[in-house]
């Protein structure tokens, strides 16, 4: 490929990436050291935004909740996603319909899905699940104001929303496991559990790593779903980092864009730390294949 041809192919993408990713990132880092109001030049204030964020117990609670949510949801997505993918893989003609109906949860806008999901637990709006759980357990759970019931609801919604993607990915990965490998394992006497643990899952390591990577990124930036699911997120310790940024930087005409930028920079570092093992593995795998 000629240099000019290469440039014409890569140029538009590069332009979009610089415009929509690199420049905003540079501006975010710059603002994180400034006091900034809309439409006005920022004033340099050193590390004040960082010390304010790191010294705010509310930010600490937001980081803890976000990491907890990420760890639990990622684990559930992997386990449940794998089990559902195996189940769907064994289906016959129904497979496309089951897969299609599962995707509804994934393609719905986050906030629309979250509002519908919250109504399942809200006695004021019918609350079918709330009613069933109340009948079964005899307990009235406060899904929106008690910390742990609210966390369970948020986790359930996040898994419901993200599961279809992981099922699709794992299902695609299952098609790539060579039949010969399975047959060899069966001849060697491997039962179903051993087959999955020692043959199928190791073969799909790349796919599983990719699902982890995407799930972690998605859950770390949880924001809009909390508006209907956790209306008093801050008061009960269920506020995500992105929600904390919104609340400080924008809500009710707030103009703490510098503080919001500093928290965003800290979030980027946190995301990189969380993703480091997966990025490293993916790069290693790509290198080995090359």
């Amino acid at each position: 490929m000629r240099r000019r041809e290469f440039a014409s192919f890569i140029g538009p993408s590069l332009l979009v990436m610089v415009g929509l990713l690199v420049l905003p990132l540079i501006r975010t880092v710059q603002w994180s050291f400034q006091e900034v109001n809309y439409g006005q030049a920022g004033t340099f204030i050193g590390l004040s935004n960082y010390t304010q964020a790191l010294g705010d117990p509310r930010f600490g609670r937001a980081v803890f909740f976000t990491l907890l949510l990420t760890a639990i949801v990622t684990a559930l997505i992997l386990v449940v996603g794998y089990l559902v993918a195996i189940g769907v893989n064994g289906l016959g003609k129904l497979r496309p319909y089951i897969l299609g109906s599962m995707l509804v949860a994934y393609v719905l806008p986050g906030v629309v899905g979250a509002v519908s999901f919250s109504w399942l637990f809200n006695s004021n709006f019918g609350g079918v699940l709330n009613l069933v759980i109340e009948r079964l357990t005899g307990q009235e759970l406060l899904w929106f104001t008690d910390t742990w019931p609210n966390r369970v609801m948020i986790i359930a919604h996040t898994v419901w929303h993200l599961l279809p993607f992981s099922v699709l990915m794992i299902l695609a990965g299952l098609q790539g496991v060579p039949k010969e490998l399975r047959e060899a394992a069966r001849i060697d006497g491997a039962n179903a559990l051993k087959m999955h643990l020692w043959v199928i899952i190791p073969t799909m390591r790349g796919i599983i790593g990719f699902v982890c990577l995407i799930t972690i990124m998605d859950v770390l930036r949880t924001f809009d779903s909390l508006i209907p699911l956790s209306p008093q997120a801050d008061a009960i310790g269920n506020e995500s980092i992105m929600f904390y940024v919104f609340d400080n930087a924008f809500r009710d005409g707030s103009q703490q864009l510098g503080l919001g930028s500093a928290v965003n920079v800290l979030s980027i570092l946190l995301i990189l730390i969380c993703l480091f093992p997966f990025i490293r593995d993916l790069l290693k795998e790509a290198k080995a294949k090359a």
Partner: protein
Amino acid sequence: MRNRTQIRTGITAMVIAASLTSLTACGAGSRTGAEDATAVECDYTMPEGETTVNVLAYNSSAIDPFTNTMVKSCTRENVTLKHDPIDFSGQVTKTTATLSGDTGSYDILETYGFAVPEIASAGSIVPLDDFVAEYGEKYELDALNEGMRSALSYDGKLYALPMQAQMYVMAYRQDIFDELDLTAPESFEDMIAAAEAIREQGDIEYPIALPMSATADVSTIYQAAMNSTGTDFLDAGEPQFTSDGSREALEGLKSLLPYMDPEVTTFDQPSVQQQMFNGNAAMAIMFSGRMNDLTLESNSPNFDKFGFAAPPSLAADAPYLFSRLSVDGWAIPENTQLDKDMLFQMIASSVGEDASNASVPAAYPAREGIVTDESSAYAVAANETIAATMPAPNDPFSAPVTNAIRPVLVEVLLGQTEVEDGMQEMQRLAEETVSGS
């Protein structure tokens, strides 16, 4: 191969169905249909070139009649008025953004008494007194309520043209009250007594409903309770969170909590309406703009069982009712590039008599004489309330102080912080906000 085609067809069909569902959901909140809006005369000097006037106004049944009248009546020849649907929270955020630079995205802004002092003191909106002097007679602006004009004024100047006001009104289940021989409560003590009687009857466990959403309404409720004692968040710029009025307000609100849904701190006004629609509550206090919905048969099987009254006072001897007067009006941003004279005539035409008449009963128009006792089921209650609501003081720090104290207020009401500790903490946060440190 056949399998793959089946998978593709199935997934595609489901994804299209889901996308259509979500698109329908996205459009469900749009209430900008101005087709049946009132047409009024909108007589401004036509600009030479094609002109678009961008209007920022949240959608609600009380505001829409005025917005729609303006958009329909003032769009002609070279001029197009553009209004996109938005909720109240979005309006607040966009107002801050559009007023910040040398140029903004909007040319006409819906604003309200609580926000006016802050943006007026910053010089972000235009004083309207000269326009009122010039066009007062043409648009009969003298008929706009003096108190509401005062609520939208700062430092002696009018900064927004009032269109309508909202005040707290109490809705209660007349059938239940009659059955138990109860009358509309006149104090928090009466409310508790009524709630106990209703609870004893056995049908409703949590008879009282108030909008106390932790992210917004709770501070308005607290301010209304303080106002009932004759105090406000700020007095001549001094925070009043350690005052007796503040203590009485917090203790009064806490005394109602056992009779409200345990999740009341997640309830905004639509949730409270829903409680009344469902029959889960027997008494609710909300802004008057929410009352019309209760009287519509399509919303609730109880639509004809509601009675309306002025809200109670915090205590029997309190000087004012447990209420807030929120006045909405139109403002012109300083940074608009369009002719301000033209913009003023647009907003003046939208608050005329015809538009005001069309807004009843959903709204309580600023124009005098429009709301009579016969205007709606709750008109008497609204008129009584407006006469006994503490006048809202105008202070540029009201809005930032409210945002600063809200998390602590929630902690106090949830019992996570003691009343005295909460008062001290709110005072500290308010003083920091006022001093800018």
